[in-house]
């Protein structure tokens, strides 16, 4: 037993399991939270009947989806159709490996943390594209193509936003980026004298990457049925929904690390609170922001989305990198 606890491999496996468990477990309460927020924004209570204030609703929903028939359309590419939901979900689990939850709680402190997160995060789009294509349905294919186009446009913008942060910290390492923001909220990258523009770009691109309103055009219920997951049912559909929530959580966590100072406390006298509490609070705030906007703004049109990405965000990102460069050279 002691030998087991001492071995590195055990801890790596244990932490990985923990990360997977968190990612699989979190979407359940978050669906409840989202429906509650949706309800209260629309002056209604949201789920109320299953358990206290409907807290057990996600379990009931999960059970329902689990027991439903798994339909594979005729003419669908069976292998890709079955694999696509996993392709969409796994990258977001992999992202969590690199995100530091406190100075000690992380799975891996990678030298290339930010690059890894961006690279792996970009892969989940294959799940959506392949799911759309393998369904052998026009709506689903259009949803997949939109996802691909959206992804290409916004990954670039997100990259530029993150470059600004990397320049501030002079490191790709997530821990170094957090440490560079130490010493109260004035040192956080979200402050105007740091990387406010980058934060704005990052969040807009993040909404697009997570396929959340106002950028959920791959789903586009209004015009595409349900977009890329039109043909999915039961558990595979649930996996797509899970992937969306996992994306939201990981982008929120990433925003917390890159711009809100990660696990550092906002003011000096609160330093005694453990770092993981701050990290969780900041991530929850970002998740709330995602949900809040979802029930406030309408969906962007496809061409508006492209215009915003290519003509506005990317030039802004380049400008931000240049200006940051000027200031960074100074010290």
């Amino acid at each position, binding site marked *: 037993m002691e030998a087991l606890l001492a071995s590195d491999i055990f801890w790596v496996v244990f932490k990985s399991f923990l990360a997977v468990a968190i990612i699989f477990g979190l979407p359940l309460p978050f669906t409840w939270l989202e429906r509650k927020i949706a*309800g*209260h*924004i629309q002056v209604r*209570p949201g789920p109320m009947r299953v358990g206290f204030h409907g807290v057990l609703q996600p379990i009931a929903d999960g059970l329902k989806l689990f027991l439903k028939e798994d339909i594979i359309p005729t003419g669908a590419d069976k292998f890709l159709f079955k694999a696509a939901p996993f392709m969409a979900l796994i990258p977001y689990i992999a992202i969590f490996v690199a995100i530091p939850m406190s100075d000690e709680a992380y799975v891996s402190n990678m030298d290339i943390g930010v690059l890894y997160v961006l690279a792996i995060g970009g892969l989940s789009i294959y799940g959506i594209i392949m799911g759309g294509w393998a369904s052998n349905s026009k709506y689903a294919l259009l949803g997949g193509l939109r996802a691909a186009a959206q992804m290409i446009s916004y990954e670039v913008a997100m990259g530029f936003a993150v470059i600004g942060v990397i320049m501030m910290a002079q490191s790709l390492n997530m821990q170094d980026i957090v440490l560079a923001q130490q010493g109260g909220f004035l040192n956080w990258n979200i402050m105007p004298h740091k990387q406010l523009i980058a934060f704005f770009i990052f969040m807009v691109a993040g909404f697009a990457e997570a396929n959340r309103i106002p950028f959920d055009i791959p789903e586009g219920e209004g015009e595409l049925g349900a977009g890329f997951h039109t043909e999915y049912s039961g558990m595979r559909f649930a996996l797509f929904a899970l992937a969306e929530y996992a994306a939201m959580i990981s982008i929120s966590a990433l925003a917390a690390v890159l711009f809100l100072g990660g696990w550092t406390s906002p003011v000096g006298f609160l330093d005694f609170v453990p770092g993981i509490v701050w990290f969780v609070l900041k991530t929850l705030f970002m998740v709330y922001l995602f949900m*809040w906007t979802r029930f406030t703004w309408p969906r962007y049109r496809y061409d508006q989305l492209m215009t915003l990405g290519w003509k506005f965000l990317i030039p802004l990102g380049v400008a931000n990198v240049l200006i940051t460069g000027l200031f960074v050279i100074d010290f």
Partner: protein
Amino acid sequence: MLKDFLKTVFLWDLVQGMRLTFRYQFKKVVTMHYPDKEKWVPYDRFRGLHYQAVDEEGELKCVACELCARICPAGVITIEAYEDDKGVRRPSVYEMDLHRCAYCGLCVEVCPEDAINHGAGYEFAGFDRADAVMSLEKLLKNKPNETDPEKMGTVASARFIRDKDGIRVEEDGKKRYRWW
């Protein structure tokens, strides 16, 4: 001019929307918690489940003139008449198939004896198609028991009951408030 420009740059419209939805989150919810906690008591004028009226002696008012059956646009009502001991025409069969009923109220308006009436009932969902076919006996039971006009048009606290007699929502009389 400068103000407009700044508003565009800082996405002021979107921020305003966010502010509005944020404020709405703390408003009191307007949902009526039917059937768990609350129940709606309809007004007198409400066109609910029909009932057959009886006179002071407990005698059926209906004389089986079949005017209601004739005027009904959906053919809901089936009547078969007979002559009782006093020589009055009475319905032996009076059936309403409420699956077809649109609650237009024509049958109530046309009735010369004020026999068929709209009640206050609106909870007649059932597990069987036969549940919605109202026989004479069922129609006699449907008379609303709420007569106090003060209590009409209110939301009453209630509880949801599921036992061997079936599923129903009963007022518990603890609380009552006006909807508007």
